[in-house]
Each structure stands twice: as structure tokens, then as C-alpha cells.
């Protein structure tokens, strides 16, 4: 390492630690960052005073200050430590910035959703439908009921199919069929959601011979097409984690294979499977496009999955925004309140899923 062979300074200094000579002290990059922010902040302040901007641009100041820091940090390190450590510092700062940049949209999105959604996030939003509502007021109860029914139905279809497929792949499947299913399940995760909606529409329009069909069950089928591969993948991973010793011990006691799976393998992996299913639900509950196509939209309550159009929460958000009436704010506020409800549901599902995975997973380690 070049750092170790750096010749000692000409003046007689006390013996330095050879491992740290030639390396910038730890706080230096942070001090540089502060200095860069101050400089750029001052420049923006001067611009403000000169009247170039009409308000202080704090986001711009931080952004350009950070860019300046990346460059200054590289130059300082290069002149003191050499080219290779300087490159290392440069890449480290870029990589850390990439992570921070990715956090910005998440924070901004959550902040806007909460601050815009709160005004209409009230009791009437959860207690009424949009029937005969023009302008202000109204609620999304019909959409919430629709979302719960359609997603629940999709879960009822996907979980048995997905779980049995995962069991087949892990416990029974050998040869071409198993390999083909694994591969196609992977490919199926990539089906665009709108294509799933078109499929459900094409299927039911042909089978039931109604060219303009719209009903909730079709939405459930479309969501199942999206959900099954996710359930299969996650359950498969979980079933694979069950130690073979458990199965062999069960066989040795004379338990048939299917009872081994039902009584030993599934209970061991049930926490992981539950987590996977909840994450799959949280993925499909926010799908808009397929439901827009096959479930349609309506202003009134509809409890029947098999008849008539059915509103869902994502479609509610979309239609409130897309077809604004007068006053427009009422519609936009409702859209944001719907978005907030959706985000809360999805985040809760995610959180509960993680907790279930943490608390109920079997302790395999000794």
C-alpha cells in the first residue's frame, strides 16, 4: 500500500502510527461537507439578495453543496492520499448518495400523501358512498368494500392453488413438468397487470357471451393471475427451508407422505407462508389497471361480486382525479384521502407480515 511507504515528513516529528499516516483523519470529510454546504448556501443567499431568485432555494443549496463536496473531497484526498484512495472515497460518496437519492421519493411521497390525505380522512369518508354526491362530501365506503371483497376472493383463489403448486414443486416435482412450472412461474411474475385485466375480460366476455362485461369476480380472477406466482415463489422458498430430518423422522414413524406434509412440513413453515401471502396481498391490493378494465367503476354500493360493476379503492382514487367536477378541490381531496387509505393498508400489511415472520418463525438454530 502506498500509504505505508510514504516517506516520513522532513521535520523531526514524533513517531507517528504508520497505519494511519497519509490517511485523512476521520472527521475531515464531514467538515468538508459542512464547509461546502455553507459556501453554496452563501452563494444562494447572494443570489437571493441580488434578486435572481424570489425565495431561498434550500433544496438547490443542499443539492449543489453535496455535488461540490463530492468533487472537493476527491481533490483533497487525491492531493493528500494519492489517486487510488481518492477513487475509493469518490465511489463511496457516490454509492451513499445513490441510497439517499432513492430515499427522497419515498419520503416526499409519504409526506404528500399524508398531508394531502388528512383533510378528508374523516368519519364520513368511511361511512358513505358516492351515490348522489356532486361536489363536496361523499365517501369511499363502496370502494373499500369492493377492494376487500375482490382482494379477499383473489386470495381465496390464489392461496390454495399457489400453496399446492409450491408443495408439488418441493415435495413431489421431478423432471420436465416441475422445471417447466418453476420457469413459467418466474416468467408469470412479469405479466403486466393490465394484460391480466384484459385476459379476465376476454375470458368472461367469451364464456358468458357479454361483450361489455364488468363485474367484481372478474377482477378477482385478474388479481389471482398476478398473485399466484408471488404466492408460489414465497411458499416454495419457505418449504425448502424445512429440514429434511423432520420429514425423515416422520416417515420413520410410519406416517404417510401426505400427512407428513400436512402435519409436519406445513406447520413448521406456516409463519413464512403467512408472510408471503400477506406480501402478495399487499402487492395486488393497489392494482388499478386490471380492475379499471374488468370491474369498472360505479358511484354506488355493490356487495355482489357476480353482478354489476364494482368500485375499488385504487380505481376510486383514479376516477376522482381523472373526472374532476366542481369544485375540483373536493374531488382531489377525496382522491388523496383514498390514496392515504391505500398506503396505510399496504404499509400495515407489510408491517404485520414482517412481525409475523419474526415472531412466529421456528427457531432452527441450536
Amino acid at each position, binding site marked *: 500500500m502506498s500509504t505505508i511507504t510514504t516517506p516520513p515528513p522532513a521535520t523531526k516529528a514524533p513517531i507517528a502510527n504508520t497505519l494511519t499516516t497519509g490517511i485523512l483523519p476521520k472527521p475531515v470529510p464531514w467538515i468538508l461537507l459542512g464547509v461546502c454546504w455553507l459556501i453554496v448556501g452563501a452563494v444562494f443567499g447572494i443570489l437571493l439578495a441580488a434578486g435572481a431568485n424570489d425565495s431561498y432555494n434550500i433544496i438547490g443549496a443542499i443539492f449543489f453543496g453535496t455535488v461540490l463536496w463530492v468533487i472537493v473531497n476527491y481533490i483533497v484526498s487525491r492531493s493528500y492520499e494519492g489517486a*487510488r*484512495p481518492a477513487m475509493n472515497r469518490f*465511489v463511496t460518496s*457516490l*454509492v*451513499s448518495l*445513490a*441510497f439517499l*437519492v*432513492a430515499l427522497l*421519493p*419515498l419520503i*416526499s*411521497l409519504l409526506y*404528500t*400523501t399524508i398531508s*394531502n390525505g388528512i383533510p378528508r380522512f374523516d368519519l364520513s369518508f368511511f361511512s358513505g358512498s358516492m351515490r348522489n354526491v356532486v361536489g363536496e362530501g361523499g365517501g369511499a365506503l363502496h370502494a373499500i368494500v369492493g377492494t376487500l371483497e375482490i382482494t379477499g376472493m383473489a386470495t381465496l383463489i390464489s392461496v390454495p*392453488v*399457489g400453496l*399446492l*403448486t409450491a408443495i*408439488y414443486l418441493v*415435495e*413431489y*416435482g421431478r423432471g420436465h*413438468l416441475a422445471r417447466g412450472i418453476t420457469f413459467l*412461474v*418466474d*416468467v408469470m*411474475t*412479469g*405479466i*403486466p397487470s*393490465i*394484460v*391480466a385485466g*384484459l*385476459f379476465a*375480460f*376476454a375470458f368472461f366476455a*367469451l364464456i358468458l357471451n357479454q361483450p*361489455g362485461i364488468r363485474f367484481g369476480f372478474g377482477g378477482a380472477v385478474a388479481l389471482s393471475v398476478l398473485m399466484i*406466482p408471488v404466492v*408460489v415463489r414465497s411458499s416454495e422458498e419457505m418449504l425448502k427451508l424445512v429440514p429434511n430430518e423432520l420429514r425423515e423422522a416422520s416417515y420413520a414413524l410410519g406416517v404417510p*407422505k*401426505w400427512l407428513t406434509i*400436512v402435519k409436519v412440513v406445513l406447520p413448521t413453515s406456516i409463519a413464512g407462508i403467512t408472510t408471503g401471502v400477506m406480501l402478495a396481498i399487499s402487492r395486488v391490493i*393497489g*392494482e*388499478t*389497471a386490471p380492475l379499471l378494465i374488468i370491474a369498472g*367503476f360505479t358511484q354506488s354500493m355493490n356487495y355482489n361480486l357476480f353482478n354489476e360493476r364494482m368500485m375499488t379503492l*385504487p380505481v376510486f*382514487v*383514479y376516477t376522482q382525479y*381523472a373526472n374532476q367536477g366542481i369544485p375540483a378541490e373536493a374531488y382531489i381531496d377525496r382522491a388523496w384521502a383514498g*390514496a392515504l387509505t391505500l*398506503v396505510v393498508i*399496504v404499509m400495515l400489511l*407489510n408491517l404485520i407480515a414482517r412481525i409475523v415472520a419474526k415472531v412466529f418463525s421456528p427457531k432452527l438454530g441450536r
Partner: protein
Amino acid sequence: MTTAPAKPEAPRPIKAKQRPGDAIFSASTVVAGSLILVVLAAVAIFLVAQSIPAFTAGPDDLKGGAPNFWAYVGPLVFGTVWAAFLALLIAVPLAIGIALFISHYAPRKLAQGLGYVIDLLAAVPSVVFGLWGITVLAPFVQPFWSTLVDLFGWFPLFAGPVSGTGRTILTVAIVLAVMILPIVTALCREIFLQTPKLHEEAALALGATRWEMIRTAVLPFGRPGIVSASMLGLGRALGETMAVAMVLSPQVLISFALLQSTNPTTIAANIALNFPEAHGVGVNVLIATGLILFVITFAVNFIARAIVNRRKAFSGAN
């Protein structure tokens, strides 16, 4: 002579008892597995069946008066691929950076939590992304776009006049990039973590800095993984509907300009915007465009998965 008669038969080979429970259970798992193949085939079959009338549709049935179906779908395919490509251009470098940060830079204890944070982005519904893009992102980036047009307007991609609302295809590409970031990051992270520890330690022992270790050990090992992760991200971006439908004002044209107010739209957004009012052959035309989207994404995903699977076979890491 009253003992039981000696059995002349040879001892039979021991066979497990055939239980009906076993047969039923294993048969039902096979049925469930095959159902997936059936569904995938059904998606293709029903889309084809419903889109046959569209291929012979005339100008009367096609929106915008295109002479035939292929002239109608051409600009849409262009818009779809173009928007997805731009999104990929933004997302992949960022995703590699984040994946490296989580796998090799962040403190061990924090790493998993940071991974969850990025995964949260994947959980946000697309319609919320659309709302955010139109109300927050578009006004925020508009000044940057107009500066860009002022400074680099001579470059064809940034040709003016700039859109006054910020609702341009570049804004859409940013929203799409944010949406595909989690999946690309998650896959890259997994691949980077699979790098043989001995390779990394050997590089460090030879005096490499952390970046040199990553460049010489981690990135070469992960390259096929990065390629396939990008393609899976591309598949997602191709099929993304609501963000595009909400942020862009619908136009059907071919244009490379990034910052103007007329932008090419995508297949998925076009379907979502026109399907509720479509009737007659119009429905078939939209389903046929959906079929083309299905074929494109299927091909992209197929190639990506094939790369991943080939990689798994000889990576030695798992």
C-alpha cells in the same frame, strides 16, 4: 400334521401401502401445478381469440384515423419501449449503487433494515405514484427542464419548446424509474451477496481498496445478474400503466424529444385511458395492443429468466 401348510411362494418385495390420501393429495398438487401452465396458455389463447377482428380493422374503427392496425400500434410500441428504456437508464446505475451500499458499505446491522426501506417503495400502489408524479414531481422538475432546454436546446433530445406543466416523458421516466428501483435493487443485492467471500478477501489481501475489490471481484461476478435484473426491471417498466396514464397527456405519435408537451404514450396507458369508453371493434383493437404488450414483456422476461437460471447452474455460490 395339523400345522399350517407351508407357503410355497417366495417372499414378496416390500412395498409401501397405497393409501387413498396420498393419491388424492399428490394428484391435487399436480393439478394445481398444471393449472398455472393452463392459465398462462389461456392468457395467450383468449387474447388472440379476442384480437383477431382487430387485425383487419379499417380506419373507421381506429382512433386517430390510422390506415390499419399496424400503423395504429406502431407509435404505441415506440412510446412503450422508449419510456421503459429511459426509465431503465435512470434506474440501473442508481440500483447498482444502492445494492452495493446495502451489500458492501452499510453497517451489517443496518443493512437488512435498509433493504426493507427500499422494498417499501415497491409496496406503494401505482395510482399513488401517478398522483405524486402529477402533483409533486412535475411542478418540481419543470424549472429544471426549462433550464435544460435553454442551455441544451440545440441537442435534439432536449429540443424546445419546453412543456409548461412538466408533464413530459422524462418526468414519466423518473416515476417509472422509482417504481422499478426496488426489484432491480433487490436482485442486484442478492447477486452481490453471492460473490465468493474468498475472492473478496483475496483482493483485499493484495492491497486493493474497497472500490478496487468491488471492481475486480464483485462486479465481474455479478455482471450477468445485473443484466438480467435490468431486463426484469424493463419488463416491469414496459407494463406499468397508471403512472404513465396519469402523468402524460395522451398523444399517439413518434417523437424523441424529451421535454415537449406532446409525448408518445404507451400501450398500457392507451388501454387504460380508452377502454372504459371503447365499444365494438374498438375493444378488440385495444385487446390486440394488449396482446402485443404481452408478447414483448413475455419475451423480455423469458430471456432474463433464462440468463438467471443458466447463471444459477454453474455459479457455485449456491
